[in-house]
């Protein structure tokens, strides 16, 4: 909507210059145009390709915050864990909020262990689609009162214990960056994308 000549003029000018010209141009072109004509999207015609703001992120500083783990295992750190070590950690650090066996549901943290795969009460064994999510979540958010306090080996062990308690792996499996992404979760097959799309049909 800004006249072509104005666009040419502002190319190469600084951001402030652009805004000034744009405002003047809009005053002339639109007069008192109603609010509805002014889209929430800015007219990008006169924008520079880049504003040159921000500074390059170094690989080192990205690594500090890049803690997410992907379903294919991308992001899993070195280290490993066992079911027995995980059981001891669970008893020491998790039972207070998740119950002695993890099947307890009337707890602050809620049920972690499913007693049956078809049970309607959500737990890891009957509702979680990816095992990698367990590592990611425990490492970033648990225990609730001391998030980020567990070592990678401890998180691997707690992951191993919770998978075993949910009858997904047996008690001898070692969990690490190689084995964890291979664990197939029983609930994965239940997940479907959102199919609501407006209109009359209720979904």
């Amino acid at each position, binding site marked *: 909507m800004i006249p072509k000549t104005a666009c040419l003029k502002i190319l190469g000018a600084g951001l402030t210059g652009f805004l000034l010209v744009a405002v003047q141009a809009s005053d002339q072109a639109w007069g008192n145009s109603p609010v509805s004509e002014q889209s929430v999207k800015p007219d990008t015609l006169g924008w520079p390709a880049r504003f040159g703001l921000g500074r390059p992120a170094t690989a080192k500083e990205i690594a500090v915050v*890049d803690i997410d783990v992907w379903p294919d295992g991308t992001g899993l750190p070195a280290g490993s864990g066992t079911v027995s070590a995980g059981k001891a950690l669970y008893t020491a650090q998790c039972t207070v909020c998740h119950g002695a066996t993890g099947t307890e549901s009337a707890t602050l943290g809620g049920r972690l262990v499913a007693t049956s795969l078809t049970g309607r009460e959500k737990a890891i064994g009957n509702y979680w*689609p990816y095992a990698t999510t367990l590592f990611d979540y425990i490492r970033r958010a648990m225990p609730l009162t001391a998030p980020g306090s567990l070592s990678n080996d401890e998180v691997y062990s707690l992951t191993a214990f919770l998978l075993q308690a949910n009858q997904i792996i047996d008690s001898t499996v070692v969990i690490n960056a190689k084995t964890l992404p291979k664990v197939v979760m029983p609930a994965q097959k239940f997940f479907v994308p959102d199919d*609501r799309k*407006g209109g*009359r049909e209720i979904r």
Partner: protein
Amino acid sequence: MLLGGAATAAVAITQTSFAKAVQIGIPEKAFGPDDPTKVPGAPPGELGTRSKFEKLLKSPSEISSRTPLQDLYGIITPADLHFERHHGGVPVIDPAKYELVIHGMVDKPTVFTLADLKRFPSVSRICFLECSGNYRGRGTNQKLSPQDICGLTSQSEWTGVLLSTLFREVGVQPKATWFLAEGSDAAVMTRSVPVSKGFDDAMIVYAQNGEPLRPEQGYPARLFLPGWEGNASVKWLRRLELADQPFMTREETSKYTEPIRNGKIRQFSFTIDARSVITYPTYPATIQKGWLEIRGLAWSGRGKVRQVEVSTDNGKTWHLAQLQGPVLDKAHTRFRYLWQWNGSETVIMSRVIDETDYLQPTLRELLTARGADTGGYHLNPITAWEVKPNGQVLFRPEV
């Protein structure tokens, strides 16, 4: 609450239309001078305050706090009454140290300070923000207010930079289809969002209703996804990572997904379906015979509200409500319907139609479509209110 207090300075007798004398006690400390025209008032101040006669409060639980919808007018939620939902408490973040890093499938991994974000061309937009777990009307309790039933929705004017502007700045690569948004709270909250939403209308916002964001809403900067479930608009935003797949975080797998029919679990159900709710008259209000204005809010995550209908005879007949303009996209819209109550028992309710022609369903219709085990996400049923002959208004549970 007022009656029986020791600090009652005056008792007023009011005559109701039921010809019953009602005593209204007025507490002493709330009592101003007898005649405010005879005493100079308070001098100008640094910060405005609410009238001491008004008591507007959110209702907190351990994990959330609800907006008092029944006490508000118009469409803007005062920032201090905006609902709260967070998974690791409200963090304290020094704006001078705040940084947002964007990396992954981008040409230029970049760190932006808050000052950087504020230098970009800005955009302001009035939109609702609603938690997808916003329905507490299943059960038998009739003493529920709109705040109790669906107080996890609020509306603000949000100001910030369009995410598309930042995407262009860092050069998002064509193969990137999803991005992870991560917060710097104790939950280190994460959600995956389609890149298309980032180019469509997503914003990084740093202001709310003209002032910097409130800490509870993500100070100093948050993601804002118009029309989408609140959890995905990650607060206290510290990082965006571009990728070619969703990350499958806990909040988009174990939580914020809903069981539907045939044992399936629906995932990435971002959009908030249209809903309306009457905010007056509702519990705990008591009404009197004669003319009154039924008032409420209606909104849709899919666009504009097209029409709101009100029934005053338990859903037998429906009447067009008046919409207060401007009717905005993905925004709470105020509706009104003038009603003459004849004093007999009835049930009032509202339903909205949005611009996709979606008609707000009943709870039964929702449960029929999804199965009885669907849980509490994305429930937006018609909400009904029972009006008793004595003027009492109660929530009327559906099933």
